[in-house]
């Protein structure tokens, strides 16, 4: 162990708070190093010297002055027991708000569900056009039908006239 390493543990060794391994390391180093041994002896003397400083006592009126200051402290109000801690009050309010919100959830869903339910007439019309509705997916997704003009009405007279010579020509 080097002098720099032992210096950190020297105080703990001298005040008998080092663990057994630290104590053994320090003792080994102190046996081998006269400089650190001298320093350790001087630390022991220093601590004895520091004990010579007299204790500074508080003045005679210290307690009385403190009691006066405590007496002048604002007294707790009668309603303060209701809210012992702001954090607790906030937690309670949050819990209450959450409970109300959860309780209201089913009530909000019901009116919506009734409003979207079809009436008897609407149900009858749906059944009446059920064949069309059943074929709707097939019709809308057919690629062949996509080439047909989107407004398939009765063809105009011009178109019929233009097609007629072609038909004849081909014959």
């Amino acid at each position, binding site marked *: 162990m080097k002098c720099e390493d032992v*210096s*950190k*543990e*020297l*105080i*703990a060794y*001298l*005040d008998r*708070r080092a663990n057994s391994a630290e104590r053994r390391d320090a003792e080994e180093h102190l046996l081998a190093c006269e400089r650190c041994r001298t*320093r350790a002896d*001087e*630390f*022991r*003397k*220093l*601590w*004895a*010297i*520091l*004990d*010579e*400083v*007299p*204790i*500074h*006592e*508080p*003045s005679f009126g*210290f*307690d009385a*002055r*403190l009691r006066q*200051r*405590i007496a002048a*402290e604002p007294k707790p109000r009668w309603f303060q027991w209701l809210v*012992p*801690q702001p954090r607790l009050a906030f937690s309670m309010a949050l819990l209450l708000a959450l409970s109300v919100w959860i309780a209201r959830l089913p009530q909000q869903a019901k009116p919506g569900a009734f409003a979207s339910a079809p009436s008897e007439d609407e149900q009858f019309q749906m059944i009446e056009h059920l064949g069309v509705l059943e074929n709707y997916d097939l019709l809308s997704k057919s690629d062949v039908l996509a080439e047909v003009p989107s407004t398939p009405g009765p063809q105009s007279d011009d178109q019929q006239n233009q097609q007629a010579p072609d038909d004849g020509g081909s014959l």
Partner: protein
Amino acid sequence: MTRSDVQLMLDVKAGDDESFNLLLRRYRTPLVNFLFRMVRDSATAEDLAQEVFLRVYRARKQYSPSAKFTTWMFRIATNLALNSIRDNRHRKMETSIDAPVDDEESAPRELPAREMRIDEHMVERDRSEFIRRAITSLPEKQRVAVLLHKYEEMDYGEIAGILDCSESALKSLLFRAYETLRVQLAPLVAQPVRHGAGEGRAS
């Protein structure tokens, strides 16, 4: 049977003011003593000690015994002392702008050069004052560490908690502080140890 600090504080929390008086009697001297060694002014030390007790009293309803009572109390005291020292330093800096340079108050409160004036110094002031000044000349954090280690006999963990540092950093801090004191007080260290002295904790 003597009630522990934590038990007394829990009783204060329950509304027993007599338990607070017991805590006051138990810790007023160590606290005033610690603060006096920090700020070097009797009136300021007492004001700060009163403020510590007042804060403990105000916090009684929120008290939970998560930390040692003395650690909590000395942490408050340390913060108040360091703030007071910084405020005082600022005040002195402001007032010293117009003050004469050779004013006694504005003179640096450092120890004289050991080789040159130590004998004169020892004649002028008594031995304990010389030691006290050596402690006061330490940097603030080192001073707190020495006072809590040497005089309040706190564990490394407690002191490290108060100073917001690791135990390893505290050991280095203490070594540097004691090394500085060993050099500053070398004339006393070189003398034979006085009979009966040095029976404190860190010895």
